[in-house]
């Protein structure tokens, strides 16, 4: 991986994170790969003030889905995923690409595979709704931070993402 003979290893501006691909957020406002889980928040289809907190653990693929008030999702039965979990995985693949999601969940989908459920072996798992929900609130908290007019010289290392070509 060299760019005209310039080694990736010796470039200050070497790109590490592939730019996040734009996706619609109304259904799944938040998804992250953190705390050994693919986890996130899925909007309720019926009640605007309700959200579902859904997660899949890495390795074991333990599923959980609860409302933000920690009531279990009626659609999830044991190892059979509900629509919220399906939407969550779809959003994660749209946002991070299937490779990064698969790597995090420790699965290897066959080449050209665009869907990840076929290689998961889900089980039921206890949820960690409060943790995921506070992670979402922390995420939203960024939108509340005041802007800064400091020169921030270190941002020279972070050129704005180019078009995904």
């Amino acid at each position: 991986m060299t760019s005209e003979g310039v080694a990736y290893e010796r470039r200050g501006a070497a790109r590490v994170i592939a730019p996040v691909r734009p996706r619609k957020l109304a259904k799944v406002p938040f998804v992250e790969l953190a705390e050994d889980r693919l986890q996130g928040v899925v909007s309720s289809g019926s009640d605007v003030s309700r959200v579902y907190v859904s997660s899949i653990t890495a390795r074991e693929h333990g599923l959980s889905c609860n409302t933000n008030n920690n009531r279990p999702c009626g659609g999830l039965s044991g190892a059979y995923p509900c629509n919220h979990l399906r939407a969550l995985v779809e959003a994660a693949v749209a946002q991070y690409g299937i490779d990064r999601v698969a790597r995090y969940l420790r699965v290897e989908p066959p080449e050209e595979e665009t869907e990840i459920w076929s290689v998961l072996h889900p089980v039921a798992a206890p949820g960690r709704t409060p943790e995921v929900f506070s992670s979402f609130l922390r995420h939203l908290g960024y939108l509340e931070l005041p802007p800064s007019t400091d020169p921030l010289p270190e941002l020279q290392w972070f050129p704005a993402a180019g078009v995904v070509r």
Partner: protein
Amino acid sequence: MLADALRARPPGLDEAFALVDGLDDALVHGLARLDDDRAAALDALVGAFSATPLADRVTEAIGKIISGTVTDEHLAVLAGCRLALLGAAHDALLTDLDAALTRTREPHPAAPAPAGGAAGSMASAGGGQLSAGSRSWLRELAIAGWRGVDHELAAGGSPAVQALLGEPSRRRLAVLLDGFAAELRAAAPVATLPRVPVRRWADLWSRALILAQAGRPAEPGSPVDGRPAGSGTLVDGRLLILGADLHEHPTVFRCQVHGLLETAGGVRLVRTSVAAAKVDTISGAAAWRMLSAFPILLAGLAEHRCLEVARMTLTAGGDLIWDETRASAGEPADPFVSARVLLAGAVATSTAPLDRHPSVIAEPVLLEGYTATAEAFDLGGGTVAVETDRLPAAGPLTPELVAGSTACIGLLRFDGGRWAVQPIAVRSTVRKKAVTAHTGDWALGPTDAKAAKTEAVAGTAVDVLRERAGRLLRK
């Protein structure tokens, strides 16, 4: 002339980078696992610094690190070595470039002696504890090495970052650490990563470590007692925009404007910068929406206007601390005309001593009469590479426009051992029609129909998240 300077290398540059590379390589497998080669590379620093004021401290720190004792103080010396070497490289590169451009650069004023009353301009109380959290994570990283970064260690910086974000005067360190941590999380477990960005992560790590040292002065933009801190001067004048450079990581979007400030005392080359926190799902042209608190600056970019500024703070490093209440929109001004008439005679400033590094060089130039491809410009007598990775999705510049360009306002940068130009405005011919494109053209929304449609879809992301935040955050 310029082509020659871009090809030449200052004496000693390769040697300085070789020392830096030795240090950086030690961080790949971690200071806890130094083999003989890596220990020898670190030991080379002792010789290199033997005739400097740092000699004793470098000898002691490197000796202790090689023998297995890694303290915050030793790491600070290591980061200091790197800073000194890269600072010298920065100065040498810029001196040669200035000579080729016949650019006059004012030296950085000597730091005032610390006085008793200076405490007020230091990062606020409690900063010590905040920095300690960052330093402890940075120490764990140095000991484990990049190859030792797993998901847990990558996420370990999170509490420190969250605490720093809550303190406006520590935004600089917070923004850096947050971007660095996001990369480590994305790359973890690094042990299985095919290639490691060795220079980059060592840069980010050592810059963060320097910023996390206690007793650093507050940043110029952060107010102390309601007034901007730092040793800036208040200026009146007219800011003629040359162009915008856009920066971004998952939780920040920043527009840095390069411009010419006309004052009674002459014309200066300055930068001004506005940054907003964001989340990873807000990207591309929609990210401009996060900067809606700066309508005057954004209109200046989108409408190609000059901006009148009154009593705005200009730092010794050439950063105008943007303040919308001290700015007003001026007459239309074509950046290419401004560059052609005023850039050659504008006086540049010097980067603050601790900030010097080849990667912070972004020198505005006007290039004309070259032969373009998407990858390089033939200046006649030599070619300069085009930084195609720095054409942001949030602006209209594309490789095609660059390849068809006849004139370019660009930023000269030095990275990966070579000079390259990052276009921030181009004049091109597309299907026999002359077109002009500037990075900041979409500051008030894309002017291109297809991009506008994409922006509208992505822009609703901002609205959706704001609505969710409004509903859930204040419960």
